[in-house]
């Protein structure tokens, strides 16, 4: 039997979501993690194996918490404007960074990101009763707005044109 862990693993992973979601992977050092997570370096390695191990745990947590919450909210969306607004106002920092930065270099990250995006597509498709491809196009638009901002109200321009989608 090992000694009980002297830190709250759940809390540490949640803190890692914030850290990895706000900064590039290489910009987060083990020193940063030790300082922000309230975890000793030894415990960090013993629990997660590596910085990547902790990153994967944080990403999965982000998907289980934040992306799941978004999908639940999307289920109640009745029009494209609401769906767009829900996605563009969700806390998707880590998902976006992962998609841009880590997914091309890490197959496991790529699979998690892909599954999360498909879940969002599906939630939109179900809520608005539209085909999956059209829902994916809306997700792509929403992610684009998240990256680009919403210059000249592109979201409104699009939804005015699209609603009703079916």
């Amino acid at each position: 039997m090992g000694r009980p862990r002297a830190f709250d693993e759940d809390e540490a992973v949640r803190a890692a979501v914030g850290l990895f979601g706000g900064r590039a992977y290489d910009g987060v050092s083990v020193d940063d993690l030790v300082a922000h997570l309230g975890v000793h370096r030894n415990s960090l390695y013993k629990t997660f194996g590596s910085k990547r191990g902790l990153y994967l745990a944080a990403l999965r947590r982000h998907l289980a918490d934040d992306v799941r919450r978004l999908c639940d909210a999307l289920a109640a969306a009745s029009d494209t404007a609401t769906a767009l607004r829900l996605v563009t106002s969700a806390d998707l920092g880590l998902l976006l960074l992962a998609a841009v930065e880590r997914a091309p270099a890490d197959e496991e990250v790529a699979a998690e990101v892909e599954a999360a995006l498909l879940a969002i597509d599906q939630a939109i498709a179900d809520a608005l009763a539209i085909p999956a491809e059209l829902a994916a196009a809306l997700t792509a638009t929403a992610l684009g707005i998240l990256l680009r901002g919403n210059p000249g109200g592109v979201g409104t321009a699009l939804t005015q044109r699209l609603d009703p989608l079916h």
Partner: protein
Amino acid sequence: MALVRIDGDDLVVVIKGLDKLWAFKSSLTIPLVNVRGATADPGITADPKGIRAPGARVPGVITAGTFHLDGEKVFWDVKDPSKAVVIELADERYSRLVVQVDNPRATVALVENALS
């Protein structure tokens, strides 16, 4: 300085030069199934390392050999902290290896790719 390579289903860490005298080891072979991950960690050399036996530690010059910390055995071979890589193990004599490599980024990628 250490050379880290993958040999079939094993991770092989070769200690180079005179370091092997201080470290009391010339190489370590670890089955990949017992390797949990690798991390570039320049900051680890500033942490307490525990009690050394056997090996050498001249602060600011070299940390090499076996260190005992919190009931764990950690193998060290580091002169230049900026090139330190931490390799976490399971079910091995050592809980973790902290070694200096030429290119930490490449070594981390090599180990992580071998695991996935």
